[in-house]
């Protein structure tokens, strides 16, 4: 099998700046890339300013590394820096071989698998409500007679071509029904939509958060979503999990670094927190650098 081994250093810096002093701050961070068969974490460091009273790490319900940060030093700015070195060796899925199954057959096969995990990824979740518009959209694209590979390509294409990538048009509160009316959004929205479509036809699907390599290989267009956290979709197939990126109308290869997966964004938000402060406003800044390292 062809190898596409790459090594990356990912720097992910999140800063919150408040107008007024913050007395205390509690954060949950899903910033540590998980190990997968295609990906190995070589090094990980997390630091935050001001110095936290406590940082701890546990594996969450989905097997992600979940960090807890507790900061009780008064400050007006909180910065969390995570740095990972990851090796990835992931091939594009063999779509032709996925066409061995029709979509309908794949759905049937999914019903017969008894893994508990698949139930979690088959049901609606807090940010993925399977509403009638979602069903309709899915039914047009994910036709049961299509080959599974074809169907997934069709889904990627339908979202990438049917929606424009627009920052600021949506937020975490935008529902899939609203997104379908709006026809624009960012990678999180498109990932949620793809997850909703796949679940609506009976294929288990999960939301994957991570990073995308910044510098495009020569001759290829620069991908949207670079220099930022990225989100895409994992779908269960009879051949195993296949990851697709509807934002860029592509499938996932060694350019992608997986951080965590869950039912939707609410399970894997990179950094969420509660601060104690009288500040009415805050500014958030996120900087992500994905740098290829020599092997």
């Amino acid at each position: 099998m062809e190898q596409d081994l790459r090594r990356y250093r990912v720097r992910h810096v999140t800063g919150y700046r408040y107008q007024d002093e913050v007395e205390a701050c509690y954060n949950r961070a899903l910033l540590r890339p998980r190990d997968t068969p295609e990906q190995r974490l070589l090094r990980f460091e997390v630091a935050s300013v001001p110095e936290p009273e406590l940082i701890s790490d546990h594996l969450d319900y989905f097997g992600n590394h979940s960090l807890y940060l507790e900061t009780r030093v008064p400050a007006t700015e909180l910065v969390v820096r995570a740095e990972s070195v990851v090796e990835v060796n992931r091939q594009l899925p063999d779509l032709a071989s996925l066409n061995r199954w029709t979509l309908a057959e794949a759905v049937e096969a999914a019903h017969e698998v008894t893994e508990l995990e698949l139930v979690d990824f088959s049901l609606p979740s807090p940010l993925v409500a399977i509403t009638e518009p979602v069903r309709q959209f899915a039914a047009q694209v994910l036709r049961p007679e299509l080959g599974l590979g074809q169907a997934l390509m069709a889904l990627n294409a339908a979202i990438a071509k049917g929606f424009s990538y627009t920052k600021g048009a949506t937020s975490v509160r935008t529902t899939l029904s609203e997104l379908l009316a709006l026809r624009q959004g960012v990678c999180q929205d498109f990932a949620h939509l793809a997850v909703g479509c796949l679940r609506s036809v009976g294929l288990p699907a999960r939301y994957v958060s991570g990073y995308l390599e910044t510098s495009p290989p020569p001759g290829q267009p620069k991908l949207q979503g670079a220099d930022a956290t990225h989100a895409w979709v994992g779908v269960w197939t009879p051949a195993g999990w296949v990851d697709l990126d509807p934002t860029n109308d592509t499938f996932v290869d060694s350019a992608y670094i997986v951080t965590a997966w869950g039912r939707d964004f609410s399970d894997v938000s990179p950094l969420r927190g509660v601060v104690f402060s009288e500040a009415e406003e805050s500014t958030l800044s996120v900087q992500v650098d994905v740098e290829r390292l020599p092997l």
Partner: protein
Amino acid sequence: MGQSPDFVTPHLQSWTPGGAAGRRFRHGGWIADAFPHLRRGSTQVRNAVVGIVMPMSATVPELSSPIIDAYRAHPARGCFDELVTDTGVRAQAEALSETIESMGRPGLLAAREAVRNQVAADGISHGAGGADGARNWVVDPLPLPLAAAEWSTLETGLAQRARLLDAVLTDLYSDRTLLRRKLLPPAAILAHPGFARSVDGTLDTNRPNLMLTATDLGRDASGNWLAISDRTQTPTGAAWAMANRRVVSKVLASLHRRSDLARLRGFFLSLTGTLLDAAPDAAETPRVVLLSPGTGSRSAFDHGFLATLLGFPLAEADDLVVSQGRVWLRAGDGLAPVDVILRRVDDALADPLEFRSDSEIGVPGLIEATRRRQVTVANPVGVAVLDNPALIAYLPRLCTELLGEELQLASAQTWWCGERSGRQQVLTNLERLVIKPVARQAGIPVRYGWLLSEAERAELVSQIQAEPWAWCGQEPIELSTAPVVTSAGLEPRRFVLRSFGVSTSDGYRFLPGGLGRVAGSIDSDTVSRVADALAKDVWVPAAAQLGSAELARPRLSVARQAAVPPRVARTLMRIGRLAERAESTARLLKVADDLAEDFGSHAGSSGAAALSLVLRAVSGITGCERDIGESNIGYLARITLDEATPGGVHHSVSRLIAEAQEVRDLLSVDIWSIFNRLERTLATEPADSVGLQQLLADVLESLLAYAGVMAQSMVRDSSWAFLDAGCRVERAAHTVKLLRYTLVTEPRSVPVHGPWAELAAEAVLRAGESIITHRRRLAAGTGPGTGWESVLDLLVHDQANPRSVAYQLVSLVQDLRLIDDAKLAAQAEAIAEVVAKFVDADQTASAAHLEQLAASLAGLTERVSARHFTRQATRRAAETTWAVD
């Protein structure tokens, strides 16, 4: 199904609604309405009346029990009634029914009234405090007796159910074997909003995690107990049950004495022990707090009284903080570790870091602290997954698998729509089933199939088909009835029982009986809404109590310094200030009213001059001006009685009571009857000046009783110190104001000598409760020469007079030392020294002195607030929104 008697007693006429008087309903045909659809059925029965209107002269065979007989014949009586059978009275209710007959209708109504008064006196309420209305708890005077054997069986069944639910809970948050083996359909749990994934792996698999249980039970038409739903997330109501018992046992004292009942106290002792034992290993002297959403909660009374019964402090989110992965109680400048939290905050609101980030009543980091085994939360967050009707459908199977036992306590037949067979059953029988969402959520009501229109039913069907796992169908239960005292005689009402269990080292133990509730009206078929229901005291004979000796096991716990969180300290100081404000204002008003009565109509007299001086003090101190054309009495009455007048007596009293409710767990239960009396006094309208005198005397008497209870019931610790400090600063400030408005008012209208000067000085001394000392000293020739000198001496300097400013400062120094604040204690001492040097050299100097004194006192009060009452900053959610990507 028995037959009702072929006659009606004359009593029937008075309570049978409308034209149905005297009609006879055949019981077999009467489908009593546990649920509204059966009411529709009942209408049909009414329409197709099979009874005959009996002549009023029909013979009455059992004259000895007319009330019970009338009740037995009541058309709304259920197939199973808790008091009567078709021919007699239930064995366990014989003493009760004799009591009912001997009381007669007037006696029953008197008992109902007595219960109302007792509830008011004990301050038992339901609903949120404040404007939108806590209201008094409504209790029916008649207890509901259960047979000993029956309770024992029920208790055994409940204990098994608790063990089973505990095993399910622990499995769901650890291995999930039940889901992997499909003993429980995975989607029934994984699609339930109560399944808290962030809690996964935090439970201790070596001990019971379900520390408290509550189950709503009802009886079906044949009298069998059925579980209707479980309330493990916030098992509210045990303290209300205790409150019911206290009230009913007082009102029906004789019957209560004769009945040898299982005591309720043991349950609370067990719970105290269980919570102490639940502390993480390291804790030698565990600190337990009851985390409450605050007085804004509808169950605030239950939380406060429960804390009192358990002996643990109430805490709110602002009182707690997570630091270094454990929970602490904010106490003064420091933090005191918390080992166990008895939680009355919903799962979704318990930790804003993990769940709803907009929760202001949860503690961020709480789940992490439990994961680190630094704190035990009872019940653990995540338990809401058990309050899921879908589980009911699988309990028999789970019981066999997990416990190797047959399920003893049956549930109302329930189907989960997530499974094909269940869904078919529900959809086929939609019009006769209760349709429940698997999770109680705002906006998704329980629906009764028979009440739905065609369109609504179609809508529900499509909802079920779209998300079948989110729905259950449940067979309606025709609930039993129990008698309620009404002005129209005894009325049958639908009855449900909420049971309360606690996990102990000897297994689950239950509050004997539980919280009984009956429907708020005769045609109500459900008892679901606490707001509308009446409470019933459920009586279980002592013979039925399991191992009462163990139950009452007192646990030795080392007394520890009570930590006073800022919120509590602030509330206590406010209580101290408000009680003192009410008292000193009432005293001043009483003096003013007295003068107005004597001299109001003698303009130009020395008395009238004294009156106008005192009235000026009244308006200056209360900040309430006299309206144009308002009479003296009208003005004084308004300040006394108008609740909306800030600075007035009623206003202060209302705020005092509201503040006291915040710290109910710290206060003697005796103060509630005093508050009740105060409220009643202030709700009356005095006819004249004499009436106002009497009213103010009553108010003062109550406030003195309050002060006495507080002084005699509180340990002199920092809680007391804050309360007392409030009283001291208020009294000192009031006295200084009184002097400023009378002694040094510009232009100085009070001559130092002469008859009216003496009159005015005496009035001030009376308002300062120092007139007797003044007179005694005058008589003995040991006092100062003039009244005004006496005023200064007694109300400012005399450290032996508990009304003097100097005395307040000495006490304040002691309070501040008790709080461990040497800095402020020193500042209070410095003010005391200034007071000692104060002499009435001349008018200007006095005015300046008093002004400075007032400012010093206000400054000191502010510094107490700044140093001890700081709240945590506002919590805000911070999330990496994806708009920036």
